[in-house]
């Protein structure tokens, strides 16, 4: 996990399971569309991996507006997992992703969700036959219809079931994405048992904001997911907890906006990273962060820094 992959420029290259990334920085699911939206505004050579918007078997319309609201150093979103469905994805979105992969070496991971474990598996099976996709990322923050709408990610048993079903359906790389709402250690164990290659830590934290004049929630859907710098200490702590527990390779994220933020996640134990909300204000946030991270690393190899944070020395 921590030897720099062969044949790649050494300092920033990372290997995670079977994947080789030229840059540790990925674009987080739901914050980079299907890639094409960013064309011309991002330096693709700095994008190690692209995690697509969440994909379901059938197209989904998503929630009515307002869908987003800014909070203190963060934002809430309740987009409602709007997406074109498997068929629409293959017809309209995949061609550009193939081109990205071919021309820029961007690793493409499709973020999956469903309302039944079987739906995740069907999606993974369908994608398994397609060229131009390196793997999938399982989004567990979705209501499980068979469990009365409780999210897959709230129980180790369902997390295991989904991971195993996907693992059996695909030979490609499988990452499982956890929310800091946890219980992260149990879920991590379930994902490993289910055969995942890596964990993404992680998703947004449930949050709420209320318009006190109109006395209603700021989002049409009620609550939403908190992302951005406000989330960073929370996800960072989960990454370190997972790393110390000896988990699968970790893809870290949550509020990364600078090279120092990225390095914090690496020092806590992440091998690769996801940049989400920062892309909204700066479409080439990944390029900016890449340059800053390189400066912050100095002469060190990134892989030598993974999990290197200790307690502070006594004064």
């Amino acid at each position, binding site marked *: 996990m921590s030897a720099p992959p062969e044949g790649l420029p050494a300092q920033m290259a990372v290997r995670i399971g079977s994947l080789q990334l030229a840059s540790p920085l990925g674009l987080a699911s*739901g*914050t*980079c*569309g299907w890639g094409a*939206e*960013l064309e*011309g*505004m991002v330096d693709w050579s700095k994008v190690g991996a692209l995690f697509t*918007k969440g994909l379901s078997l059938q197209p989904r*319309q*998503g*929630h*009515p*507006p*307002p*869908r*987003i*609201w*800014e909070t203190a*150093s*963060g*934002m809430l*979103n309740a*987009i409602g997992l*709007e997406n074109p469905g498997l068929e629409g994805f293959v017809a309209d979105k995949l061609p550009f992703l193939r081109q990205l992969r071919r021309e820029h070496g961007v690793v493409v991971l499709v973020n999956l969700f469903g309302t039944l474990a079987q739906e995740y598996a069907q999606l993974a099976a369908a994608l398994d036959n397609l060229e131009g996709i390196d793997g999938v990322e399982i989004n567990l923050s979705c209501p499980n219809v068979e469990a009365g709408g409780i999210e897959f990610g709230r129980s180790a048993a369902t997390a295991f079931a989904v991971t195993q079903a996907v693992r059996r359906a695909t030979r490609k790389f499988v990452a499982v994405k956890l929310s800091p709402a946890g219980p992260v250690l149990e879920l991590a164990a379930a994902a490993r048992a289910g055969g995942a290659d890596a964990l993404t830590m992680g998703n947004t934290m449930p949050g709420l904001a209320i318009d006190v004049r109109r006395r209603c929630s700021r989002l049409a859907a009620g609550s939403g997911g908190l992302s*951005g*710098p406000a989330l960073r200490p929370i996800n960072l702590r989960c990454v370190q907890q997972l790393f110390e527990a000896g988990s699968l390779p970790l893809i870290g994220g949550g509020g990364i*906006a600078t090279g120092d933020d990225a390095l914090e996640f690496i020092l806590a134990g992440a091998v690769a990273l996801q940049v989400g*909300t920062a*892309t*909204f*204000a*700066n*479409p*080439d946030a990944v390029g900016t962060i890449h340059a800053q991270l390189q400066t912050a690393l100095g002469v060190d190899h990134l892989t030598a820094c993974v999990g290197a944070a200790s307690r502070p020395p006594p004064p």
Partner: protein
Amino acid sequence: MVAARRKQAAKVVRIIRLGDPEAGLGQVDLCASGLAVGVEAGRFAMLEAVGRPDCILKRPFSYFGTEGPDQISFLIKEMGAGSRGLLQARPGDAIEVLGPFGNTFPHLASGAVWGVAGGVGAAPFGLLADRCARVLLGTRRQAEAGFAAALQARGVVVDLATDDGSAGFAGSVLALLEKALQKAAQPPQALFACGPTGMLAATAALARAHTLPCYASLEERMGCGFGVCRGCAHRDVSGGWRCICVDGPVYDAAQIFAAPASA
């Protein structure tokens, strides 16, 4: 032609407070090399006052004017932290500009159109002085009518309506529009509308009644401005969602606002 979308660090040239200071209206002029390239009426930019870390997202504002290839102007009303940060900037301060984004108002013959604007919906009409014979602008009261003078300074003929009758026509801009359409010797060939959703829907209904084409510029909360956050969804007549930052913000109103079910 779609202009190259880009991020530029612009400098504040000047900030002109408009009308009653309490109303919180201002014109913000920015410059940077090539900043005006690709700017057209209806398009918008995402703006952020650099060094004010109280916002993590940029805010959308319609282009109001250009001055040569390097200078652009916005009309901004203070609503919260984002707009306040822009209006409080001082000459020389840096403002980051992402854009231009979005589509444009159609290129109809000069003078063929009437504009209908509510509040901050005034802004795009600064670039429509030639296409619009007149712009009907509605605000709550005179103190909030500061954008009228800014439009007039760009050669726009403005008919003001205030809810409280403190200036211009007493009543809503819709009532003014209805009256004007009734008595017009030269009715317009189309309406361009920009303002709150309720006002746009009413304008669309009136246009339909007069069998006039109507183009409306929609507003939704935007997270990015370039199609990746999916925050800016707006319902269309088919019941689907339009992502108005890339698909709009300007629409044939008939695609967005359904005809009223006949009673």
